């Protein structure tokens, strides 16, 4: 319990801190990449990824800072990529929306909503053929459910008995359009439960709860051989793209944010840690992460850009 909550706090804090630093530095325009921030959704990234093992694989969306940091724990290549430097994971050629970390199991993220969902199916199929014991979790937003490829993928995974861990992160908006304007049905979880898969739902901001639910979902997947579908609600604190708040834009109300802010995933986790740790101990743990982030940013700022020849590298193998 104690160790679990400590580890979960490290993850949510790292995500929050890394994005806070992005927010501090973004105005200088040194990070020329469209940022879709994970702030507010840390419990899902941390909880799901903590339930996965090192060899397990994840696939995400353009809003994937959270899962990258939770799964890899590393910040050097992450910040270098944000700064467009040669030391980034894609030598500056991918940016914030296209994160990869093959050694840590992050297969891909994509800027086109829904496109990465079927990639998970093939990854699971390959793991089965190659007898690799690896769970594959694919993260997507509620907007992806509007795309045909989601339904194609859900149908195929259930029909072909491909145990994919679907993780639907529902923040209520597809870009700025609310679910009420987009959905011709009441409950996605209800519909998905009619498919041959295991469905789990939560609106918790407690990383420990998400961790437990994910572990259950993986257990159900192993026991049944069927996919599991995690339906998780959260609130996106910042604008769809960018590092600022957008409550003055009129499409959502600050009071809703305040309701979610009252159970903020980072503060909630910190509060729980106080059962086992002193304020000083927690502060020291945070300082370690602060320093890691700060040093990564410094290294990124000092790193060179890729030379012109790099433009032509890696188009083909």
């Amino acid at each position, binding site marked *: 319990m104690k160790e679990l909550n400590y580890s979960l706090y490290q993850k949510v804090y790292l995500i929050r801190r890394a994005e806070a630093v992005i927010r501090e530095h973004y105005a200088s325009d040194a990070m020329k990449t469209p940022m879709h921030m994970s702030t507010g959704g840390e419990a899902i990234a941390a909880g799901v990824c903590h339930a996965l093992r090192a060899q397990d694989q994840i696939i995400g969306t353009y809003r994937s800072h959270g899962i990258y940091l939770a799964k890899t724990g590393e910040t050097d290549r992450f910040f270098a990529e944000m700064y467009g430097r040669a030391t980034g994971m894609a030598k500056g050629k991918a940016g914030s929306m296209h994160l990869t970390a093959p050694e840590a199991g992050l297969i891909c993220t994509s800027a086109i909503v829904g496109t990465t969902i079927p990639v998970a*199916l093939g990854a699971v199929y*390959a793991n089965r053929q190659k007898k690799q014991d690896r769970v594959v979790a694919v993260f997507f937003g509620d907007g992806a459910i509007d795309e045909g490829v989601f339904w194609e993928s859900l149908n195929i995974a259930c029909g072909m008995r491909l145990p994919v861990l679907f993780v639907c992160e529902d923040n209520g908006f597809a870009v700025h359009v609310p679910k009420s304007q987009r959905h011709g049905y009441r409950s996605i979880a209800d519909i998905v439960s009619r498919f041959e898969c295991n469905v789990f739902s939560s609106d918790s901001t407690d990383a420990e709860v998400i961790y437990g639910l994910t572990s259950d979902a993986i257990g159900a997947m192993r026991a049944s051989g069927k996919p599991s579908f995690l339906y998780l609600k959260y609130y996106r604190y910042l604008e769809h793209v960018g590092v600022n708040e957008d409550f003055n834009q009129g499409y959502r109300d600050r009071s809703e944010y305040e309701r979610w802010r009252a159970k903020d995933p980072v503060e909630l986790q910190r509060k729980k840690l106080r059962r086992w740790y002193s304020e000083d101990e927690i502060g020291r743990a945070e300082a370690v992460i602060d320093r890691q982030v700060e040093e990564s940013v410094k290294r990124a700022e000092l790193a060179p850009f890729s030379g012109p020849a790099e433009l032509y590298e*890696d188009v083909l*193998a």
Partner: protein
Amino acid sequence: MSRTISYREALNEAMAEEMRRDPSVFVYGIDVADHKRIFNSSKGLVEEFGAERCFSTPLAEDAMTGFGLGAAINGMRPIHVHMRVDFLLLGMNQLVNMIATHRYGSGGTMKIPMVIRAIIGRGWGQSYQHSKALHSWFAHVPGLKVVMPSTPRDAKGMLVAAIRDDNPVVFIEHRWLYDAVGEVPDDAGTIALDGARVLRSGSDITVVGTSWMNVEAVKAAQILEQRGVSLEVIDARSIAPFDSGTVIRSVRKTRRCIIADNDWVNCGFSAEVAATVYEACLRELRAPIKRIGYSPTPCPCTRPLENEFYPNAVNIIRAVEEQLGLSETDLSGEDFYSYENKFKGPF
């Protein structure tokens, strides 16, 4: 030693041999394991390799294309088959946004060894959603290789090479070529995915053909030979990367060039070839380059209009005559290809 086999058998042998050699190779797509077996090109595969490595899929081209990407990243070598290239359009998002970019976006850490076989069609009322070619679309996108062999030998060697290649390869097969027969060496090996083939040497005009248009070009060359006109027919074969060197060497020799593309002309591969030749040998050309392709319309169903829509050997012969200032050859006694000689009824 070599054998005479059909294009269809060449495709089948290439897949079966590679599946035997490498357990990572698998083949999937609508109809792959059904009784029709993609015009029999996937005959015997499900029996020999089982349903895990040869399977028909739901009608979900978009997701099944992404499926191939995930499988390829995790070490498999998928062969995804489309009975019509028109169906592959439903997977274009995966192909263009995901598959073509992922190696670049992963900083070169991941590879995507994937073959997408797509059949292009013509004839017997296929009309406008069963007959496109679209190789120029695919070739436009960096990160994809595009090939369209026209002989059994090339079909086998290039499909083996495509399966072993660590990049996504779009492999385009003309339905009419399935019955073409030709010599294939017993030890066929691989044929590189970046080279054109000189199908017929000649000295008066270079004709660059793609896919079925090579059959038409060779027929045109045979007829014109009677008049002492010598065509050099080059099968472009590889659309991306395009072997411009072979074409340019030929045009420097003949100083004339006709491009017979199995596709629409506008913004097509023929424009790319023409621009490449002009850039390299504008001053050596004795006549403007002539481009031949589909009419700028959707493909009609009925035979008389379909005949107008598709280019053929006659169009090539007339273009040659125009370039050389010759009178029209009397073609009344010539026997041109007709699909009615091969079969009746739906493909």
